[in-house]
């Protein structure tokens, strides 16, 4: 019993956020999480391997046999038909995943870092700095995302539509609106942790303020981040699609974009051409549902009161019978009596 891992210590993999929850979950919650994770995995894989999966390029209008033809029904050369502009629907849907993923990445990375740093500083230092930041955050929070996205789309792209501009517009507007959310969550945690005994103990030792903020406060404040990130991600997709639908999105020759395709298919709906709108629409819904399912089940699993567990078996495992080590002495511990028992001694929260 010297250098080996203490019993009950989970391996590195099972301590990772999502994987730990997956092992914890049972029943309906597990089902939800698995469905969500599967959809997300398909989405990400499609985005990464779009060039290999898609039969045609996103802006391709003709191949060796000539033009594709507009509004062809599904079947034959075009599995899901073609759009009014003569693009292949299947290829547009697959390439669109790439755009959506990029938008999520930009939005999340930009807002996470700024929101967290501001949250920790504001929560830990407090005082007038905290008040000002909270007021600003509230003001920004009241701003409609879409309006902001439209404005930033115009500013960034200067009226010229391209992949970079469109994604950045959606990403930036999400960032601005979501920073207050990260800020609020991290700040609330920081305020709570600030009064914990271990932070006071660090102060008593004479630890510097930066070290306290990042080593002691921030590391303990990140519990609810995975949840907000997933909610944030679905919001990013919505905004990108809405921008495209409203005509501020990305032109078809720069990138495939589900919102833009939906916009162009409005007139098709009344004339019985269903395939141009159903497929990009379904793609948006599926990704949002997938991401939300993951977020929702993470939320349930994070809360011990909402988490369902397997029923206790009548015959317990032998190590579990001992729940406490009253006054374990050094000798007990060395002989191994107390080891393996301690992990069971968890306080009810």
């Amino acid at each position, binding site marked *: 019993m010297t250098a080996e891992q203490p019993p009950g210590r989970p391996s590195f993999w099972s301590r990772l956020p999502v994987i730990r929850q997956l092992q914890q979950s049972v029943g309906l919650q597990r089902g939800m999480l698995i469905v969500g994770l599967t959809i997300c995995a398909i989405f990400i894989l499609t985005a990464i391997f779009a060039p290999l999966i898609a039969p045609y390029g996103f802006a391709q209008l003709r191949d060796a046999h000539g033009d594709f033809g507009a509004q062809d029904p599904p079947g034959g050369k075009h599995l899901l038909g073609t759009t009014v502009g003569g693009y292949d629907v299947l290829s547009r849907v697959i390439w669109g995943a790439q755009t959506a993923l990029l938008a999520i990445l930009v939005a999340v990375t930009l807002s996470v870092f700024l929101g967290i740093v501001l949250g920790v500083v504001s929560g830990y230092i407090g005082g007038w700095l905290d008040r000002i930041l909270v007021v600003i955050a509230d003001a920004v929070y009241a701003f409609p995302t879409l309006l902001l996205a439209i404005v930033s789309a115009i500013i960034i792209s200067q009226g010229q539509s391209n992949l970079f501009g469109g994604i950045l517009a959606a990403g930036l507007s999400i960032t601005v609106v979501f920073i207050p959310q990260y800020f609020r969550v991290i700040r609330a945690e920081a305020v709570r942790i600030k009064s914990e005994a271990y932070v006071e103990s660090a102060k008593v030792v004479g630890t510097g303020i930066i070290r306290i903020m990042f080593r002691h406060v921030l590391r303990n404040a990140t519990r609810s981040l995975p949840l907000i990130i997933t909610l944030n991600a679905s919001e990013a997709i919505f905004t990108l699609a809405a921008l495209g639908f409203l005509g501020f999105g990305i032109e078809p020759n720069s990138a495939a974009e589900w919102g833009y395709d939906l916009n162009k298919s409005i007139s098709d709906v009344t004339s019985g051409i269903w395939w141009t709108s159903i497929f990009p629409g379904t793609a948006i819904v599926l990704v949002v549902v997938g991401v939300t399912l993951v977020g929702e089940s993470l939320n349930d699993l994070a809360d011990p009161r909402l988490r369902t567990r397997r*029923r206790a078996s009548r015959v317990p495992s032998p190590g*579990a019978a001992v729940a406490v080590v*009253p006054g374990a*002495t050094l000798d007990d511990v060395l002989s191994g009596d107390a080891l393996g028992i301690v992990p069971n001694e968890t306080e009810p929260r």
Partner: protein
Amino acid sequence: MKNVVEIRDLAITFATDGASVVAVDNVSLTVAPGEVLAIVGESGSGKTVTAKAILGLLPETATESGVVMLGANDIVQLSGKQLRAVRGVDVAMVFQEPSTALNPVYTVGWQIAEGLRAHGKYSRKQARAKAIEILGKVGIPDPETRVDYYPHQFSGGQKQRVVIAMALVLDPGLIVADEPTTALDVTVQAEILDLLRRCRDEFGAAIVLITHNMGVVADLADRVAVMYNGRIVEEADARTLFASPKDPYTQRLLAAVPKLGTGIAHTRERAAARPSTESAPVVEAKNLVIEYAGRFGRNAFRAVDDVSFRIYAGEVLGLVGESGSGKTTIGRSIVALTKVTGGSLKVLGQEMRGVRESQFKHLRSDIGFVFQDPASSFNPLLSIAECVAEPLVVHGRADDAGAARPRVNELLEAVQLPKSFGDRFPHELSGGQRQRASLARSLALEPTLLIADEPTSALDVSVQARVLELFSELQREFGFAALFISHDLAVVDLLADRIAVLYQGKLVEEGTGAEVLVAPKHPYTQRLLASLPVPDPVEQAVRREKLRSLQTED
């Protein structure tokens, strides 16, 4: 005579994220009418779970087997609706923390009436009359007006009286009291124990008393069941159990309870060993005043009022007082966690009034601090070794936790923890082990002054005994001066060279253990001493009379 409650072969298993845990294993108990049965045991022994099973209050994750006969009903088999009919009428519960057991947004009268309305038709007027009557019976003065008060308008002891009134209002045959006095001060505890005794004598209720405090057991119980690891290891009537405990666990438990008066000889010995040369004091407080700023338009709250004391090198000063007496505030002001607002406080020669962090920082390496709750005083994401190394790293004695490891191992050995525990995380240690690690951390820089703020109040008795022993050993070895803050006179008596008693922010008495504990001068100290229940039913009965005569004198 028929038993009020009869438990046969009760077993309760909890589902957890890990393996399932057996909390109660094959427990059989009976309680006769008008009897007080105490269930004692340390945390995790299953005593609370057993008590909750009597009311059918177990959470969904629990699986029960066995029989709990309450009158003619088997609680284990009852449905939710049937349980509701039984609760309150046949059995009632008194909770540990009176301030959370009462709903803050309703008046106490309403909350008492709530129980009545659940079990019969009462008009508003009748319910109110009944509430007033019961409040009067549990000793709330002026019940006609106070029935309309909200919980926050009562003191802690009065709140517990209200909770007991709620339990008594339907005249149940059995009251389950789960640690009813743990959250209360010693002097208030004595009053509540008196009230519970009256519950039995005047209302004829049987009581199941759950507690870890052997003094409380000796004071109130007729019969005692000792639980350990979910099993009952010994069951006997109170006098027999305290006089001749049979089970080795009970013997150890009783031996670990600190008793008053044991520290005096020990103190004399230490005083003789200490060099008599009077050096400059390590801590010197002169007319110290600490105020917490009030809200706008209100006066500041004076937590510490005109307190003067000194701590010399190598000396242990015990600071005793009830909650709100300002003892923790004094401890925190010494390490600059709380601002000094008046008078003078010199720590290691540095005046603390108006001190800036930059002036004080270099002195921090000379001061150690042990916190009350070992569970929260470690960063849960750092290993024990990293936590203990933190002071060394911060003060530049080591570059990182890895470089500090040899020293950390030495420290862990000094507090009798195996080296390998350094790789564990705080939640993987038991309370006592964590508190030892906390001692190791506070000693890492070899401080000349150690502040210990109730270091053992969150621990079980037997663990407490070991930590206290360790503390005095370390003190001998390292020779630091210490301020030992506690609400428990017996604990302070074990360790301290001198004892200072605080009451409402004022220092009412200071002296050696022999002076303060044997011949207390101030009436408050006298009352405090008399209120402390001793773990011996015979002696406790005598002390109870003494306390009563003290109270009638007032």
